[in-house]
């Protein structure tokens, strides 16, 4: 009952949220100082030509009118056209987002599966060898810039050892992509029974996933350790010890109480990762949403940038919604 009410309240809040996001992305791109018309017209264009393009794009209209037109069409699912490709922004996003999600979801699963147990283990025996080693390891992978780690991984595993395929997309050139079901080439080729494509997709996934999951695992270790340490130092764990509870029971109580803050942290992290994946995509020519978005920003592709930021924001707010629901179920103090 409470969950339904809560969900209704949260969903009602999404409407002003989306409007706000649309407004902010629109304004940010406008005041960004890039002149799309200039780029579109090229250096050889005359004054009259530039004016014509400006009029055709509707950029001669007042800003509020431009926003009104934009907001209206976005709500109808029309995000405009990318002037670089001439294709609708929505199509561009839909064809690319599965590539990003494939990389993102596998990496976050792996990063979490490594980060959380390592952090918990470190918190069980603080300042002992395991804790120190995991702390140094997470500090290093936390401090190294994403693109540099990706380049080094390529340097070692592609150039040096030759184990990894070249960083040019998600499949070998000679392999045909499978029919789209989930959007993940690897899973789709397995579903289609195409072992050659599956192998190629997996091979291309290994390095970017490795790099990105390391980047995700590092702060996860630190956060998990801090959360578990706080729980283990709490009054109720102290009393459980004084009441002679067994090790297993104490561990169970501690885990249960660490769960909600850890899930909250991972959710907040995940919400920002769709943007963070862009640099990894760029290095590996992944052809995902992030790479496309970065490109749009560089070339002042207004409609595309707006679409990109809007997708990032919608992704973040849906992740928050899901996390809030999980917390609501797991945490009695929320259900008042």
């Amino acid at each position: 009952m409470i969950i339904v009410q809560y969900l209704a309240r949260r969903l009602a809040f999404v409407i002003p949220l989306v409007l706000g996001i649309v407004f902010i992305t629109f304004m940010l791109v406008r005041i960004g100082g890039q002149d799309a018309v200039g780029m579109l017209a090229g250096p050889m264009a005359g004054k009259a030509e530039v004016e014509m393009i400006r009029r055709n794009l509707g950029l001669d209209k007042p800003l509020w009118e431009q926003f009104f037109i934009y907001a209206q069409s976005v709500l109808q699912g029309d995000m405009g056209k990318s002037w670089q490709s001439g294709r609708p922004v929505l199509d561009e996003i839909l064809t690319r987002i599965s590539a990003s999600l494939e990389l993102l979801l596998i990496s976050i699963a792996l990063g979490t599966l490594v980060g959380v147990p390592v952090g918990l283990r470190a918190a069980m025996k603080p300042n002992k060898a395991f804790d120190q080693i995991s702390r140094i390891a997470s500090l290093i992978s936390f401090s190294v810039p994403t693109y540099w780690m990706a380049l080094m991984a390529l340097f070692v595993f592609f150039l040096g050892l030759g184990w990894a395929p070249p960083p040019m997309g998600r499949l070998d050139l000679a392999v045909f992509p499978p029919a789209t079901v989930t959007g993940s080439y690897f899973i789709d080729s397995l579903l289609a029974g195409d072992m050659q494509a599956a192998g190629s997709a997996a091979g291309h996934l290994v390095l970017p996933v490795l790099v990105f999951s390391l980047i995700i695992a590092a702060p996860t270790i630190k956060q998990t350790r801090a959360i578990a340490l706080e729980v283990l130092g709490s009054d109720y764990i102290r009393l459980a010890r004084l009441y002679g509870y067994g090790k297993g029971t104490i561990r169970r109580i501690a885990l249960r109480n660490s769960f909600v803050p850890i899930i909250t942290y991972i959710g907040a992290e995940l919400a920002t990762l769709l943007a963070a994946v862009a640099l990894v995509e760029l290095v590996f020519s992944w052809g995902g949403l992030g790479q496309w978005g970065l490109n749009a920003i560089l070339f002042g592709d207004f409609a595309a940038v707006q679409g990109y930021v809007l997708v990032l924001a919608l992704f973040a707010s849906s992740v928050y919604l899901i996390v809030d629901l999980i917390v609501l179920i797991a945490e009695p103090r929320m259900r008042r």
Partner: protein
Amino acid sequence: MSLLSVRDLHVHFVKRDLKNQVRTAKALNGVTFELDQGQTLGMVGETGAGKSLTASSIMGGLAGSAKVVQGSIQFEGKELVGLDVETLNTIRGTGITIIVQSPLTSLDPLARIGEQLIRVQQEHAPISREDARNKALDMLRAVQIPEPERRMEAWPHEMSGGMAQRILIAMALVNGPRLLIADEPTTGLDVTVQAQVLDLLAGLVHSRNMATIIITHDLGVVSHYCTRIAVMFAGTIVETGAVDEVLNNPRHPYTRELIDSVPERIIDRGYRKVGRAPDLYHLPSGCLFRYRCPMAAEICHSVPPAKVVGPGHAARCHFAEQVNEAMPQAAMSQTAAS
């Protein structure tokens, strides 16, 4: 044989500072006392005197850097010092139990009250959920929780402080312990609730013929609920005896000082400026109280023996016989508190 016998207990905190030098804080320096069934011992003394540390030592709950370096703690004839956790866990929570001063944060926030009352039983005995549930309900009635059936389903965050302390008392007593340590059980509670909780506790302890240690700052609590008192200073018991005897006829200057610090006394006799506790990292030799003692003399550079000044009444002071008579009254040192 006493139920609990603590002998010459020394506890040190050992740490390394930034220069990797070992620094030792001597927190307990030879605590000795005994406790029998049915007795209630009040432990008083200022913050840092070692009251809670004594309790933690008995419960085997010393924090990381604290270690028992000397002495023995025997419960029902069994040595507790140096016991491994598994064996210790067969005693604490069943034979010895504790209630703490922060009941609200000491309950597992993610388990219902009933669940926690059942858990504490099942951790110690192979008891069915049904039986454990019934015992939990009986216990909730015994601590006078209204609507116990409904409370079993409640969450800790739905409790008031007084209610949470009753739940904690129920958890502490449900396994039938012989010794209860109440570590400042009412510090966090409303004044009106304090008396209720203490009365309840006293009744339960009495009907079960348990031994109790009440750690408190409140001499009023001691005189009302305890049969014996132990006054602690800088990690030693400086005076012990029957409550009425010690409070009416203190034989250690520190006890005298404590009694004179009770608000009613201050109004009567004036406020006496007290000194600080000694630095546990650099304990002086001889009597630890001599730096702030109005009676200090040359002889106080040697460790005072525990002098027996009456039946069951002892004080660690060279001048134990003279204290109450010879010590300057508080009124002489300063005017009444304004």
